[in-house]
């Protein structure tokens, strides 16, 4: 019997990025929240643009995910995700994801993927601080 938490109304999400970025972030989410199973990681390493797009489509379908998080707005994962969104109505993309973003998402009580994505992005943006030397 699985002890995985049931996905909320926002469902699961895919995290796509360079190298081990997604795996690392999801590992951190799991350590902090125990809800890493709400996220599916994908690395773009060694993949053609068509491969990345295909992998995102497969993961979306397999997980029933409606939200895609990518690491870099100018990255190949973001471009592939935007191609997917062209014919995948209802899918939301958040680029520039960080740990605070994902933690907000897995705990979200927002009723829709879009609202959950917006709230998570706001939280991630607000989590960036600079502590300057005194």
């Amino acid at each position: 019997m699985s002890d995985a938490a049931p996905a909320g109304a926002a469902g699961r999400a895919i995290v796509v990025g360079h190298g081990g970025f997604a795996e690392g972030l999801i590992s951190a989410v799991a350590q902090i929240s125990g809800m890493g199973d709400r996220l599916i990681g994908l690395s773009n390493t060694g993949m053609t643009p068509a491969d990345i797009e295909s992998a995102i489509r497969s993961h979306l379908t397999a997980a029933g995910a409606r939200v895609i998080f990518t690491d870099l707005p100018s990255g190949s994962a973001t471009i592939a995700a935007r191609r997917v969104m062209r014919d995948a109505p209802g899918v939301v993309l958040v680029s520039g994801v960080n740990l605070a973003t994902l933690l907000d998402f897995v705990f979200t009580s927002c009723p829709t993927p879009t609202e959950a994505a917006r709230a998570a992005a706001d939280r991630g943006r607000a989590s960036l601080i600079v502590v300057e030397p005194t």
Partner: protein
Amino acid sequence: MPIQLHRIDDRLVHGQVVVGWGQPLDIRFLILVDDAVASSDWEKDLYRMAVPPEMEIHFFDVATAIREHARFAADPRPGILLTGDIDSMQRLVTGVTAIGSVNLGGIHHRAGRSQFRRYVYLTPDEEAALHRLEGSGIEVTAQDVPAARAVPLSEMLAEKETR
């Protein structure tokens, strides 16, 4: 300032180009040379959205890029020219004698290709095309990011043969 890099990269605009090369070289414009992208407003919008505000991006098919190359080469700002495949770069170089070097930045795996670098896979026809490019006086090197060594084509191909 001449165009800093003439790069073959099947991902075209992506992190290595915009950030990896873009930041240390202070790249101010990209020239994306691709017949399919140049003919599609949707594709052009897609790549425009991937470029930071301080960087321009221009789209051309190969024939237009040949005509426009001198104008961009004379631009005092640093820039990068991108093609998504060897054939486009080969056609460009044929029409622009001022191009002295070509960077292999990303030609990823697909059926029929063999691995030469983590980021360079080639079919025998593509190997031959690069040999021809080099034979025409163009320096061809593989280098994904500025911090990596630029590996000459002959060295890269020889390493594969000894594996």
